[in-house]
């Protein structure tokens, strides 16, 4: 098992490096930061001097080495636009995005899994057909349309929920959380739901498919044949066995949730990383964009490591094999 984890770690480092390289090299081509940094009346000579100062005239390899080296030291450079340290900018935005992503994920799990189980167990029921249809429509409407519709319905027409932002937040150490205020929770509902809808339907369909598959497996048939109570059969036996593939997919998707929060954040003016990223694109703020990519990749890698550990926790076959 140690080997298994070690191998994953090495792979993760490799992925991180590759993403760092991509992030760096690709963004080098996006527009010219100098024209963005300087005003309309800065002379060409001034621009050239600035270019030199920022090391933009150095060789590609040198710039990349500097980029990774700095990054390892925790120095992510300065935003071209606001001139703040990127690390700080991103760090203050991470809680918002993570909380949104996590709540979206939880919504998708807490709704998706029961719905998946239900629809798998009653494949022919009316409710099942209705749920399946609704989710189908759910994945077919673009997220941003859903978001705007929710805003206008719950925010403007009914006036129940806030239309933008995070509401009240509380600082816990360096972490700004909206979990501790009623206001914060109210503000979370719409964006988290918007972000979670897609994920929810994915989870539901996946659980359903896996569950139907598992329900036909020999051990479920055997458990039925020996009269294990239905509830236990569904949840202890069947559901547990669907979890391994489900966790994999959810792990893979979490990176996607974080990335897709770009859309949700822009619709709800949610002050997270995605919004920052969009703004950075608008202003060709290369350092922020690069670091954002690396952070996303980092999330992906971490989540996948967690998923691997979860496997081991769930599936005894992956623990150290003591051959009998």
């Amino acid at each position: 098992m140690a080997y298994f984890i070690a191998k994953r770690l090495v792979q993760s480092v490799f992925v991180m490096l590759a993403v760092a390289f991509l992030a760096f090299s690709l963004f080098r081509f996006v527009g010219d930061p100098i024209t963005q940094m300087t005003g309309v009346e800065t002379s060409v000579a001034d621009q050239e001097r600035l270019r030199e100062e920022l090391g933009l005239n150095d060789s590609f390899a040198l710039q990349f080495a500097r980029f990774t080296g700095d990054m390892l030291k925790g120095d992510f450079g300065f935003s071209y636009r606001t001139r703040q340290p990127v690390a700080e900018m991103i760090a203050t935005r991470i809680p918002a995005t993570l909380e949104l992503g996590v709540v979206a994920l939880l919504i998708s799990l807490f709704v998706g899994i029961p719905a998946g189980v239900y629809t798998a167990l009653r494949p022919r029921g009316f409710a099942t057909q209705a749920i399946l249809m609704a989710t189908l429509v759910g994945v077919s409407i673009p997220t941003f349309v859903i978001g705007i519709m929710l805003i206008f319905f719950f925010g403007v027409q009914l006036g129940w929920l806030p239309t933008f932002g995070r509401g009240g937040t509380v600082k816990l150490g360096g972490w700004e959380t909206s979990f501790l205020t009623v206001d914060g929770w109210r503000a979370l509902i719409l964006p988290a739901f918007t972000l979670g809808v897609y994920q929810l339907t994915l989870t539901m369909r996946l659980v359903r498919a896996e569950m139907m598959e598992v329900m036909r497996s020999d051990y479920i048939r055997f458990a039925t044949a020996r009269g294990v109570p239905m509830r236990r059969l569904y949840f202890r036996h069947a559901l547990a066995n669907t979890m391994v593939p489900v966790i994999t997919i959810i792990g893979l998707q979490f990176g996607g949730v974080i990335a897709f929060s770009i859309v949700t954040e822009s619709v709800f003016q949610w002050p997270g990383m995605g919004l920052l990223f969009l703004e950075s694109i608008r202003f060709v703020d290369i350092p922020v964009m690069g670091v954002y990519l690396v952070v996303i990749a980092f999330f992906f890698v971490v989540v996948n490591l967690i998923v691997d550990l979860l496997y081991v926790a769930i599936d005894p076959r992956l623990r150290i094999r003591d051959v009998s």
Partner: protein
Amino acid sequence: MLRVEHLTVKFPSRFGDVTAVEDMSLSIAPGEIHGLVGESGAGKSTVGAAIIGLLQQPGYIANGDLMLGDTDLRALDRFEAHALRGKRISMIFQDPQTSLNPLMKIEDQLVETILAHEDIPSNDAKKRAIDLLEEMGIEDAASRMQAYPHQFSGGMRQRVVIALALCTNPELIIADEPTTALDVAVQSQVLDLIRRLADIRKVGFILITHDIGVIAQIADTVTVMRYGKLIESGATAQVLGHPKHAYTKQLMDAVPPLDRKITRFRVPEEDDGLAASGPGKGDAAEAWLLEGVRQQAVGLSLQNITVEFPGTRTSIWHKPKPFVALDDISFDVQPGSVMGIVGESGSGKSTLAKTLTGLITPSSGGMTLGGSPLPGGKTRSRHHPSRQLIQMVFQDPFSSLNSRHRIGTILAEPLWLYGLVNDSDERRDLCIDMLSLVGMDPDAIDKYPHQFSGGQRQRIAVARALLARPTILICDEPTSALDVSIQAQLLNLLKDLQAAFGLTVLFISHNLSVVRQMADDIVVLRNGRIQEKGASEQVFETPEADYTKKLLSLTPVMPHDWSL
């Protein structure tokens, strides 16, 4: 105790209702082991499933009575039926590997089953589970119970499965092919256990199997089924020893005897529409096969072949120990003879076949084909002549033919690949003729594999192998997926072809009786090592190695006087 009368089970399908079981009746007394035999698709499992109320959707019981003691099983609602399952009727499935929930400890599975039916403290349930496991012959049950299923061997798992079926003291256990996935050694243990339980606990068993030997060994009564209908039923000795019905007789004829070698199986000509190769059919193909110097029989020899597989890595620092699948194997196959290779599952039989065909690279040792060295694995080029000379018939007729290609395409492949016939019309004619030679209709050429039964597909596989004009034919368990009657036909075919073309054959099987019918010489493998080798009859009559003796003694056989 259990009475089934006029049971009819139907499965609705797009072609209308399919009757899987029709007008089936049987009854079982406490302590009776009732064998249910018949070829694949006969409806055996469906009967079992109908009794326990677990028919696969959308199957339904169309007619008949099911009485367990005084309980009318058909009158129960969903919840009552579920409460009854496990409590009064239990079931054992074929594959112990998949019958247990891999994520739960053995203990939890046992305890939950007991608690599901009895309102007792969980400590008592646990104690009962321990006792039961010990009764099943699992030592140190209290601590072994903490293990997960994957930590048990196949035989132990099947014991756990039986313990699970028994832990609520049911009156009836339906065992659907409980030993098919097991080695003979484990099989005999499990069968002993079942016999013991029937005798001591007076549990009634329905034992579903396609292995007549097993039935002969332990069943008190037997029912023979075919096409969903009851053919013959009665005491085992009576039904199998003195079959009245023609089908039962056929079935008995097709069972290969372990104790002697017969030249041919008696197979009725018209059976299953598989016309046996009659005179006049396939002449052209036969002539084509016999043509040319290539048809000189060629021998094969292996010198000190060792095959290792990389072990699974578990540590960061230590290189894993390789798994030795074949250890220092040497033997010679005489030109034109049949070499039988036997051994239990995992003994390395298939590995040996794959090494010969170049799919696996041996880590040491050498091979020769007709005197010239035969490079192994990756070192054998795609154009090496042995690619053509050595052909293989695989075990699984369902996966050995590409289901997306027409039979014609599959058969013609070796012809153009080796440049044997360059004209496509000629190829087609030859393929058609070859189909006749293996006893198939010519119109099969434009069909797809899924349109054929297992036996037919195996014939096609044989035809494909022959169309490469091989001198060596490797058969890796060619009949293990087939019913005995079809097995008999295929074995006859192989015997005829071998005799006609002087092929050198490597015949692999875990079934000693089958190998005895086919082989001139024999090699007994175990854990990748040769236990014994020699002339076939000699090995069967006077086995030397203990292992061979054990295998022979454990293989279920029919009493001598039954076989006709």
